[in-house]
């Protein structure tokens, strides 16, 4: 069976208007894919906004997949959350990225979005008290169905440094370069 290694790190986030940020991530792949080693989900440390308006996590990624088919190439899902001075957390951004199928080094900038406040009272409450709307069904992040009625606003970006190593793909006739 063909193997895929994803190495690298989640570098950090920029242009979020919050003091302290962290990120929960998970890898999503189709039924053909099996995780052999590595953590398919995790949480970064919480980073404080530095001088360059960016929070740094430098969180390592190392995951090993084996696969029987190409359907459902792994995706990385991110939930960026903020941690305020009272210790409260809420989600401030969602993002999803299909991982590159090209071996070698990739620097990926992932723009994030979050559900926006629908009513004026919600907006006022969020401005003064914090908090946000969250998704109940997180499938909507990686599956492009039923997005029409969702109101979102754009947030900052998350930066990834990814190295892809493939094994035995060409043996099975998969052409990727």
């Amino acid at each position, binding site marked *: 069976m063909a193997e895929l*290694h994803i190495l690298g790190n989640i570098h950090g986030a920029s242009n979020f208007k919050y003091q302290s940020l962290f990120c929960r991530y998970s890898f999503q792949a189709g039924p053909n894919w099996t995780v052999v080693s590595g953590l398919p989900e995790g949480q970064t440390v919480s980073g404080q906004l530095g001088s360059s308006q960016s929070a*740094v996590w430098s969180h*390592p990624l190392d995951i090993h997949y084996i696969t029987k088919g190409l359907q459902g190439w792994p995706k990385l899902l991110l939930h960026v959350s903020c941690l305020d001075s009272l210790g409260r957390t809420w989600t401030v951004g969602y993002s999803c990225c299909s991982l590159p199928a090209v*071996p070698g080094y990739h620097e990926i900038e992932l723009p994030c979005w979050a559900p926006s406040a629908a009513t004026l009272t919600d907006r006022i409450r969020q401005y003064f008290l914090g908090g946000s709307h969250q998704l109940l069904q997180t499938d909507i992040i990686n599956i492009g169905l039923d997005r029409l009625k969702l109101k979102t606003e754009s947030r900052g970006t998350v930066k990834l440094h990814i190295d892809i*190593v493939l094994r035995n793909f060409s043996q099975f006739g998969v052409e990727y370069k």
Partner: protein
Amino acid sequence: MRDSEVTHFLVSISGQIEFASFPAGVFDEEVYVQYEFVWGPDWAVKSGLTSGVSQMARPGSNPETVVFNMPVELVFSSTNVSGWPQIILTVRAKNMMSGDSLRGYALALTPPTAGVRQITSPLLRPRAATMLGEWLAWVTGRYPELADPKMLASGKDNYLLRTESYGNITMSLSMISKDLRKLGYDNQPPAYKESS
């Protein structure tokens, strides 16, 4: 050796820890860096030093950077790419008044593709959990430290450690592999892709 008998691949990592840079200038008398390699269960070290400490350095005409030029050279052998070696750097400073104190931790993956790579990783340092601790850190110039910096490389059980980032450290590392492609691995970017 016939191709079918190849079970291990070798990876040689060599290069140097070039410099640390702090955008607001260096106010310490002496700065030094400790490095340590971390690798997965299938990996073994064939030769080289897996940890070390640099000289005591201070900035020159450029007040923002401290040059170490600390050489690093290692050969690993492995059967599996998973658990690729990472390097953990601890930057510390020594002062007359406050003694030895932490300036930050950095984590970097050694390059999994052949060739030279310049790696800049941010320095992270844990924040005190309480206001009093934060005030003490500010007064004494000593910051909370991790009991085991290797926990950064595992990427789990950080229990939402609060960190801040200040400055970064630049390395240039080159990787050479043997038998990696014979074992069916493909780690090289295609010719059409720019290296950036």
